């Protein structure tokens, strides 16, 4: 039974049988036991809100420690994807200690994680061109416990442009060619027509959904994109 206020992560206060009489500082999601009971303050206290002399205990949502969750940017390259993100900022006692980068070929994971320290960028190499990879960044506190995970982003590594012939396949990952909007390994009238449809939709305010990297990558369809289609035309 734990009866004293506890400052630390919930990993320390994890048991299948204990009663937590007084609250400790721990974040949501750590208490995975199906049997323990939490008595006392409902909210968690944070560093600086209680002292030894006053035992001033404040609880409630306002005193939950929190951390900002950055947005990850993924840029595809040849057999690699470069990730970057702004720093996560902790409040009320939470200090960001490190980031773990996770990747998977399946949307939603499971991800393979690698520790990235406090660096705000990571380039995942050795990927197969033409396959979509999914990435998340896990934010960990000073004690090494995960406190937040970013929204998943994805990217398709692309091989260097090669006009004209060639299947473009690499390691069995299919083919990737600029302008091949319907992924049939050809750039032809179909791709021109799809681009023309979205070009006209764009003129009336509709926005192309995704797959920007298959055109010039500037999030709009203009004459440069049609120039690329014409250049990579395989008929």
């Amino acid at each position, binding site marked *: 039974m734990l009866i004293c206020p506890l400052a630390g992560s919930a990993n320390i206060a994890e048991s299948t049988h204990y009663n937590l009489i007084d609250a400790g500082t721990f974040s949501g999601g750590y208490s995975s036991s199906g049997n323990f009971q939490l008595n006392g303050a409902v909210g968690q206290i944070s560093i600086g809100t209680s002292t030894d002399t006053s035992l001033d205990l404040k609880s409630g949502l306002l005193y939950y420690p929190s951390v900002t969750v950055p947005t990850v940017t993924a840029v595809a390259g040849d057999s690699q994807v470069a990730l970057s993100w702004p720093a996560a900022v902790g409040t009320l006692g939470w200090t960001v200690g490190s980031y773990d980068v996770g990747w998977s070929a399946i949307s939603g994971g499971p991800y393979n994680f690698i520790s990235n320290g406090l660096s705000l960028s990571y380039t995942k190499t050795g990927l197969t061109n033409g396959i979509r990879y999914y990435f998340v960044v896990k934010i960990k506190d000073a004690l090494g416990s995960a406190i937040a995970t970013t929204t998943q982003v994805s990217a398709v590594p692309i091989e260097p442009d090669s006009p004209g012939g060639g299947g473009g396949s690499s390691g069995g990952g299919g083919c990737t060619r600029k302008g091949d909007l319907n992924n049939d390994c050809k750039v032809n009238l179909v791709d021109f027509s*799809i681009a023309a*449809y979205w070009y006209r939709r764009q003129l009336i305010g509709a926005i192309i*959904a995704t797959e920007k990297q298959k055109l010039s990558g500037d999030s709009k369809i203009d004459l440069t994109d*049609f120039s690329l289609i014409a250049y990579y*035309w395989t008929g």
Partner: protein
Amino acid sequence: MKNSFFKLSILFFVVWFLAGSKGEAATVDWQINQLPNFNNSLLVTLNLDTDGQSLNTFAGSLLFDAHLLELRSASDKNSIIKLWLDQPALKTDKVIFSGITPNGFAGQGKILTLLFNYKNGDLNQALKSIKIGHFQAYLNNDQAEQAAVKIKPAAIVSYLDTQVSKNLIIDTLAPDISDLQLVKDPFSNKFLLIFKATDADSGLAYSAIYISSEILSSDNPSEFNRQVKWTKTNSPYLLESDYSSQQIYLKAVDNQGNVKIIKLSTANRWSWYELVCLLFIIIVSIMIFRRLFSSSF
């Protein structure tokens, strides 16, 4: 003093060389013809010299005074542009066009021909009012770089009589509809109907689509005269819903009113011989059952 003169001479030659040298630039060379046998008609032809470069994407506009001139038709016959993004057409007060040439074009060739009628007024004023608004071309490379383009002043040629110009005005051939494809749009997951409507002589005026459960004969255009609501469209056309039980008709009309209609048989209907065959099977089945039934009792 002698040294200064020498330096100035070198500087002069460097400046002269830089000013005199020029990079590659495509040239739009265009001319206006009066047609002798067809009064009040002007033919405007846009040609392009790529100056040795390979170009693959083109866009431009042509301005004119709508009080003095009326666009009668636009022809892409023998054009270096093989796929139109914007088929040459009048939009607000100018003719705009854009399109691509897969794998690029290098050399000299025609972009398009426009036929105008000049209304009442001064012909010279009408001629002067025709101007190229803008012209863009892109290099056929993986960078999609815009090419440098020079636009020459128009050459006004009187009384040119060619078969081409006659065909623009006397055109009895129907347009052509080809390259029909139904493909799934990867972004919307709906189906796009792709087609190519062209007219070699007077030029395509418009194309249109009609979707209905009604079965009409595309060989008999008069069937379509009654209460058929055509929707003007360009390729591609987005099929908003499931058309598996519908008939899709496509129409192309040229600038002389010649019409081509084709039917895409998407509806899964029984043909007459299939119905006869089905009837035969039913009759035989009934006979067999009757015989079995009567013999068992």
